[in-house]
C-alpha cells in the first residue's frame, strides 16, 4: 500500500498548491511537406498536422481525468516555417494554414512561425521577418519566434534592428486589442529546439518526425514547501527546492511517458520550468519573497532567483530520463501576480528584470511598455538581452509589447493566462545611433571552444 501521507501530499499539491502539467506539446517536422508550389506545400502541412495531432487533445483529457492532474494546455510546435516556405513565398498563407490546422485539432497554440538569422538573414528570411506582423495579426493562435543571436555566431544587429520595427508593426496592426500580436512573438538568443512552452516553441531541425515534450509547473508547491523552512539557512532552502522539484518533475515524466505511449509518438523531454500564472498561489515572485525579501525586485532578488533556478534543475534532473527545453524559473511580468504587484508598487524595474534574466531560465517576458516607445529602444532592449544570452551561453529572450495608446501608470489586460501588465518605464535616452550601425557583434572569446 502506498503511504497515505504521500497520497495526501500529492492531492494537496494538486488541489491547493496549483501543481499542474502546463503543457503537452507535440513537435511535428514539416520537412517532408516542402514544395515549390505554396498551395501544395500548405496543403501538405495541413494534412500532416491534422493527421499527427488528431488525438492530442482527447488523449490529454483522458490522462488528466485518469491521473487527476490538470493538463492546462495542449499545443503543437512545427519546423520553423522560414525553412520550409522559402522556395515558394506567400508566407501569410503558411501562418493561416497553421492557424486552421491547430484549430481543427483543438489545441491552444501552435508555435513555429520562426526564423533563424543569428549570423545573417537570407533574402527569403528578410521577407519572412517582414511578414511576421501581418501573420500574427491575421491569425489567432499562431506563435512566432526569431533567433537573432547565438554564443557561436554573435549577435546579428541587422536582425535586432529589424525586430524593433517588426514588434512595433505587430502592435499597430492589433492596436484595438492592446497590441496582442506582440504577445505571440519572441526574440531569442540561443533558442532551444525542444521547448514546449509558448510563444517560443518550435520543432528543431535536429528533431525526428514527431515527438512529445511536456512542460511541468508548480510555483505554488515550491512556495508552500519553503514556508516550512522559514528562517532557516540557504542550505535548507536549496535542499527543500530540490526535493520539491523532484516531485514535480516525476509527475511530468509520468505524463510524458503516458502520452507518448497512448499517441504512439516518441517521448522527447520534460521541461521542468516553474511557469507562473496570474492565479493567486502560482507566482515565482512569491517564492523569492518567501526567501525573505520584502518585495520581488528588492536587492537580493537576483541571488534568490539564481538559487531557485539552480535548485529546480538539480532536483528535476534526477527525476526525468530526458530534461530539456528551457528548464528553470520563468519571470513573465504579466503572468505572475507577485511580479505585477512588485511593478505596480515601484519595487521592480525593467533594469532589475534584466539583471534577473542573467540567472533565470529565459529572459524579459511579457513586458508592457509605452506605445510610443521608439523602435530603436525596443531593438536596444533586445540587444542587451541577447548580449546576456550570448556571453553567458544561455537562452535569453525578449517578449515585449509597446501597447498602443498606453503610458506609464496605465495597466493593460491581455486576458486569460497572459494576464495583466502595468506599463513599465524604459530608459528614455536614445540608442538610435547605436542601433543604426548594423552588422554583427562578434561571438565572445569563450565561444571558441574547439
Amino acid at each position: 500500500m502506498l503511504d497515505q501521507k504521500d497520497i495526501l501530499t500529492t492531492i494537496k499539491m494538486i488541489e491547493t498548491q496549483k501543481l499542474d502539467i502546463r503543457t503537452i506539446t507535440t513537435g511535428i517536422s514539416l520537412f517532408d511537406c516542402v514544395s515549390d508550389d505554396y498551395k501544395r506545400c500548405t496543403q501538405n502541412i495541413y494534412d500532416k498536422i491534422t493527421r499527427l495531432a488528431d488525438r492530442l487533445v482527447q488523449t490529454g483529457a483522458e490522462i488528466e481525468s485518469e491521473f487527476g492532474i490538470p493538463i492546462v494546455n495542449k499545443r503543437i510546435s512545427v519546423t520553423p516555417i522560414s525553412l520550409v516556405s522559402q522556395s515558394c513565398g506567400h508566407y501569410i498563407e503558411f501562418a493561416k494554414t497553421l492557424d486552421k490546422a491547430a484549430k481543427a485539432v483543438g489545441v491552444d497554440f501552435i508555435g513555429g512561425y520562426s526564423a533563424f538569422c543569428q549570423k545573417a538573414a537570407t533574402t527569403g528570411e528578410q521577407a519572412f521577418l517582414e511578414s511576421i506582423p501581418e501573420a500574427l495579426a491575421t491569425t489567432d493562435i499562431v506563435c512566432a519566434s526569431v533567433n537573432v543571436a547565438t554564443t557561436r555566431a554573435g549577435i546579428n544587429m541587422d536582425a535586432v534592428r529589424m525586430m524593433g520595427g517588426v514588434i512595433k508593426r505587430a502592435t499597430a496592426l492589433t492596436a484595438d486589442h492592446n497590441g496582442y500580436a506582440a504577445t505571440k512573438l519572441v526574440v531569442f538568443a540561443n533558442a532551444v529546439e525542444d521547448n514546449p512552452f509558448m510563444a517560443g516553441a518550435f520543432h528543431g531541425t535536429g528533431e525526428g518526425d514527431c515527438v512529445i515534450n511536456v512542460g511541468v509547473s508548480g510555483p505554488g508547491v515550491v512556495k508552500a514547501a519553503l514556508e516550512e523552512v522559514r528562517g532557516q539557512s540557504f542550505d535548507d532552502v536549496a535542499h527543500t527546492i530540490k526535493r520539491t522539484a523532484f516531485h514535480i518533475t516525476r509527475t511530468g515524466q509520468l505524463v510524458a511517458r503516458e502520452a507518448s505511449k497512448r499517441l504512439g509518438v516518441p517521448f522527447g523531454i520534460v521541461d521542468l520550468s516553474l511557469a507562473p500564472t496570474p492565479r493567486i498561489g502560482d507566482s515565482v515572485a512569491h517564492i523569492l519573497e518567501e526567501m525573505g525579501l520584502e518585495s520581488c525586485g528588492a536587492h537580493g532578488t537576483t541571488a534568490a532567483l539564481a538559487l531557485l533556478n539552480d535548485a529546480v534543475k538539480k532536483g528535476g534532473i534526477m527525476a526525468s530520463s530526458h530534461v530539456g527545453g528551457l528548464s528553470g524559473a520563468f519571470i513573465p511580468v504579466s503572468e505572475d501576480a507577485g511580479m505585477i504587484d512588485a511593478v505596480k508598487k515601484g519595487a521592480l524595474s525593467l533594469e532589475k528584470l534584466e539583471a534577473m534574466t542573467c540567472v533565470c531560465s529565459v529572459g524579459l517576458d511579457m513586458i508592457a511598455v509605452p506605445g510610443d516607445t521608439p523602435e530603436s529602444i525596443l531593438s536596444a532592449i533586445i540587444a542587451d538581452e541577447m548580449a546576456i544570452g550570448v556571453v553567458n551561453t544561455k537562452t535569453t529572450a525578449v517578449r515585449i509589447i509597446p501597447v498602443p495608446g498606453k503610458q506609464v501608470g496605465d495597466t493593460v489586460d491581455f486576458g486569460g493566462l497572459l494576464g495583466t501588465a502595468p506599463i513599465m518605464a524604459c530608459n528614455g535616452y536614445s540608442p538610435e545611433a547605436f542601433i543604426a550601425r548594423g552588422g554583427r557583434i562578434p561571438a565572445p572569446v569563450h565561444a571558441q571552444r574547439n
Partner: protein
Amino acid sequence: MRAVISVLGMDRPGIIAKVSAVLYECNVNILDIDQTVLRDELFAMTMLADLREMNTSFEALKQKLDTVSTRIGMQIKLQREEIFKSMHNV
C-alpha cells in the same frame, strides 16, 4: 489497472459504506484501506482498488463517485496509483 480513491472532508457516519457500495456495484476489488482523522475533525480515507475486473468505464466510475461526493458533501477523487508512486518513489 489499480487506482487510489481518496475521501476528504468532515467526519460523519457511513462514509466507507457509501463508497464501498459504489465499488461493489462496479465490481471493483478493494485491496487496502487507510483512514485517519486529522485535527480531530477532518476525515481522510484512502483506498487502493483493483479495477481490472471493473464492469464499467473509468469515467463512469468517476461519475458515480462524484454523485456520492455531492450527496455526502465530501471530496472524493479517483486517480490511477501511478501518479502517487511516480512522485514519491524513484
